[in-house]
């Protein structure tokens, strides 16, 4: 099912949580809402589910306007960060709950419900645990049950709110791969919220980066990482370094010297240069480069991260070097970013 969010605004007691957000989610897509806390990602997810009502705007499921429908009628599968399983029911009863509460002809016979529950339990790789209670399961197992429960009602769209947020790193990575497999097998349109960029970039077909109640950028992992369209996305996704610069006649300057980067289309004036710390070329001798004195040097896993003081105002900037690179021993290092982007200062 295709989901369209059209000009949605949401206020909580006059405090705006979402400003005029629009988003098209394609049928069968696995899409991630990524952002820091308070960016409105969970609010957007809850609006799609119908757990909140938009102050303005509408949400369409296919051609239908879902914003007029109650939560019960929307037929969405929702998975919560803290599982929200029914403690007094067995795993099988939890999964069958959505079918059991249906009325009249829509309600399958008890045997069919049971068969379906066992089938889903098999899908989430928990066969044999149907008689357990949620308290007798580990966190990862509980979240699998929660997902099976959400899928039992054959939802139009599957919504997951930080589904792996409460689990430890090892289980997280494992479930991530597993969720991708399940998605590929079942083809549900799936939206999940996360603040973990690694999770979003690895798992999702497309990533929606949000900040302060607005969508900053929507795109594939490559789009988001390689061509961030705002300083926020640049600094939020992956490592980034930034330096205040000046643009004059299509050339980038730091303090009183050009650094060898051409920006023919950038307007003259103050700007901020963004680049990835690992995406730099070291150069010898400096005519047209960024040079700085080494202020600190740290070993981080397979690389060495060097902090440089640049320019007259001693701006600090970080670059990454191979561990055995001789430059790390020197007191002055010069480099030029390989890929970079200018944003207007502000």
């Amino acid at each position, binding site marked *: 099912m295709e989901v369209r969010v059209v000009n949605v605004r949401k206020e909580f007691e006059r405090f705006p949580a979402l400003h005029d957000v629009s988003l098209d989610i394609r049928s069968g897509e696995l899409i991630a809402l990524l952002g820091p806390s308070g960016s409105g990602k969970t609010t957007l997810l809850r609006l799609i589910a119908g757990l909140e009502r938009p102050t303005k705007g509408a949400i369409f499921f296919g051609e239908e306007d879902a914003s007029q429908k109650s939560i019960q009628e929307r037929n*969405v599968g929702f998975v919560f960060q*803290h599982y929200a399983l*029914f*403690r*007094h029911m067995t795993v099988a009863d939890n999964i069958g*709950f*959505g079918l059991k509460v*249906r009325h009249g002809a829509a309600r399958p016979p008890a045997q069919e419900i049971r068969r379906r529950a066992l089938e889903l339990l098999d899908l989430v790789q928990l066969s044999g645990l149907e008689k357990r209670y949620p308290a007798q399961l*580990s966190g990862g197992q509980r979240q699998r049950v929660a997902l099976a429960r*959400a899928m039992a009602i054959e939802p139009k769209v599957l919504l997951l709110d930080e589904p792996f947020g409460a689990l430890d790193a090892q289980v997280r990575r494992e479930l991530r791969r597993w969720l991708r497999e399940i998605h590929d097998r079942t083809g549900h349109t799936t939206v999940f919220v996360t603040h973990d960029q690694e999770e979003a970039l690895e798992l999702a077909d497309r990533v929606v980066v949000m900040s302060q109640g607005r969508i900053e950028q929507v795109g594939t992992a490559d789009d988001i990482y390689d061509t961030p369209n705002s300083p926020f996305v640049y600094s939020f996704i992956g490592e980034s370094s930034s330096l205040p610069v000046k643009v004059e006649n299509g050339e980038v300057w730091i303090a009183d010297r050009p650094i060898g980067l051409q920006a023919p289309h950038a307007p003259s004036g103050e700007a901020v240069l963004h680049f990835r710390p690992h995406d730099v070329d070291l150069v010898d001798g400096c005519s047209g480069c960024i040079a700085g004195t080494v202020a600190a040097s740290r070993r981080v896993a397979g690389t060495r991260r060097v902090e440089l003081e640049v320019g007259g105002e001693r701006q600090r900037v970080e670059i990454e070097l191979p561990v055995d690179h001789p430059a790390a021993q020197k007191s002055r290092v010069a480099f030029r970013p390989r890929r970079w982007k200018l944003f207007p200062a502000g």
Partner: protein
Amino acid sequence: MTTAPAHAGWRFRQPSVIPGFGLTLGFSLAYLTLIILIPLSGLIWRSAALGWTDFWALATDRRTLTALKISFGTAFIAAAVNVVFGTLVAWVLVRYRFPGRRIVDAMVDLPFALPTAVAGIALTTLYAPSGWLGKLLMPLGIKVAYTPLGIVVALVFIGLPFVVRTVQPIMEELDKEVEEAAATLGASRFQIITRVLLPGLAPAIVTGFSLAFARGVGEYGSVIFIAGNLPYKSEIAPLLIVIRLEEYNYPAATAIAAIMLGLSFAMLLVINLVQTWSRKRYG
């Protein structure tokens, strides 16, 4: 996941590294012995001195049996009534914000604090055939004061805070997300309450029930004013004990007391076992 020890049974759990296990356990046992065990064993001791045949004769005396039936019966009904309305009161206090909520919240505790005799006299005045409420009920043929119904009314009054105060904190901890999950799965409001919320509250409700029930069985002060105390009709067991004491018939008094003790203990034990069982399952 918890794994059961290979050979379960009675044994000490490994005490934690924080010291004080011996001291605190010793204190608890000594304290319980002093406050509860010694007085109660004195009771058993006295009734044991009675001899089995005498005890049996006293125990199966028709007046004793009716008094016990009335005591346990009215306490049971009152506790059941309190479970329904106490849970409702707790729900309103937890879920809704309205002016005067704190005052209502405080009012729930009044039956704890009020001398029970005062409550009994106030209720009798209200429900007597000439009283405010009694007058209204009279034409309907409902007599409250001086009947077992009056006892139930008094016990409902006394027992209410026990249910509200045990259910309220658990209700406050109910996870909003569980309700939301049920709603997204298509459950109506009514289904959410009956299938998700109430089963989750059941252990607390059972505790509230058992406390209100236990309190009702032992209640004396408020009941004797409203009950009318007619033997075989509205005479409660605690009153019968007092009557026997006033007749200097100590063996009879202790016998009734011992029976009450045995019955109460058995019922509370059953309730406790039910709870332990449910806690093990639901965690």
